[in-house]
């Protein structure tokens, strides 16, 4: 029997960029040059995995990879080149609104006939699709609220106090058994998934990596603190109604009590978080640093854009009867 690892295994490469970064992490081979970075599709598997690998060194690292590589100048230079492409593309593709109010107005309205992933799963999601959704999302939810904690030292006063309060809630309010990442692990157990951190990295599609890389990008750069706050507000504002639909999906399919509880908890918790983030985190930050307004709006727009990319991808696969995963989870449920 193999002992449980504290650090995840390195994934398989998805192209030349991610292969070069993987080789570098293993101590062999050169990092990709600027031309290679410029040639890869920006939201594609290879570039997004290469960036994800760089970011993961700041969270839990990888088994057999020196933790010192987190601050290695060569790798940071590669990360910066990948980030420049990602951020430039997002600014061009995602920006829709000039003001925070306009950006938020769009997500504070509930569509009567929604067609998103949570609507699909509520109405006709099958258990295998709920399992795929959880396997994909586990790349974030098993480190839920971690990328947002990085913004705390960059905020002051009202914004800092409110952000810390919401994060405290995300981290279980001082109780390990209520940490949201732990509640998600229990959901995964109900669905017959492996709760090991990083277990589904190989399985996750490019669009899922995009959503997690977005948080890491915003979280790791003080210059993007406004975007991080806009991103966080978007997650909290859209979570409550979405979680209700997912809770209904879990109930309808008989996924299990922990699976229902994870989303039920988020219906109520995030209805509160939304209020606190809008009034005190955004309100406080705008009072303190009004020049960040366009960045906050960009954070909202970028989150909506990347979530739409993911949603479109999942629905396209499922409506065609295909798996959305690159490698199937060890599964007794999927046909």
């Amino acid at each position, binding site marked *: 029997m193999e002992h449980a690892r504290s650090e995840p295994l390195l994934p398989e490469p998805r192209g030349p960029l991610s292969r070069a970064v993987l080789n570098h992490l293993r101590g062999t081979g050169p990092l990709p040059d600027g031309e290679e970075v410029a040639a890869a599709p920006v939201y594609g598997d290879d570039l997004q995995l290469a960036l994800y690998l760089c970011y993961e060194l700041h969270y839990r690292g990888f088994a057999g990879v020196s933790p010192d590589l987190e601050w290695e100048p060569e790798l940071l230079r590669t990360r910066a080149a990948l980030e420049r492409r990602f951020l430039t593309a997002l600014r061009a593709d995602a920006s829709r609104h000039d003001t925070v109010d306009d950006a938020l107005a769009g997500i*504070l*309205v*509930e569509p*009567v006939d929604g067609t998103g992933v949570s609507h699909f799963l509520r109405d006709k999601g099958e258990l295998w699709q709920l399992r795929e959704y959880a396997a994909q999302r586990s790349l974030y939810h098993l480190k839920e609220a971690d990328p947002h904690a990085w913004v705390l030292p960059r905020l002051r006063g009202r914004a800092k106090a409110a952000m810390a309060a919401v994060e405290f809630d995300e981290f279980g*309010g001082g109780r390990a058994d209520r940490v949201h990442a732990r509640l998600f692990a229990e959901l995964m157990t109900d669905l017959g998934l492996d709760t090991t951190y990083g277990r589904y990295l190989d399985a996750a599609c490019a669009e899922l990596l995009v959503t997690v890389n977005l948080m890491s990008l915003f979280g790791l750069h003080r210059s993007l603190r406004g975007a991080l706050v806009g991103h966080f507000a978007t997650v909290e504002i859209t979570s*409550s109604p979405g979680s209700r639909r997912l809770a209904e999906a879990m109930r309808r399919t008989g996924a299990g009590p922990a699976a229902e509880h994870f989303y039920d908890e988020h219906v109520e918790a995030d*209805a509160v978080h939304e209020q606190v983030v809008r*009034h005190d985190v955004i309100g406080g930050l705008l009072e303190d640093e009004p020049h960040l307004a366009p960045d906050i709006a960009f954070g909202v727009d970028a989150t909506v854009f990347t979530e739409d990319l993911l949603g479109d991808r999942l629905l396209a696969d499922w409506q065609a009867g295909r798996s959305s995963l690159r490698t199937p989870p060890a599964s007794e449920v999927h046909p």
Partner: protein
Amino acid sequence: MPNSPSDAARRVTVQRKGPLLLEGPVEVELEDGTVVSSDRFRVALCTCRRSRRYPWCDTSHRDRA
């Protein structure tokens, strides 16, 4: 305890549209005498009466389009 809020007045935040925001923890007595409690640091109390998790806000007050 320097951070003890026990002597301070409880702040309630009202808004024209949206829930009443209270500092938690709170107990709410419903019309039928049932008492429900929430130990969140902030509690959002439904005022539109549309919540499916009444008395707690579940964002059902939002406009639909």
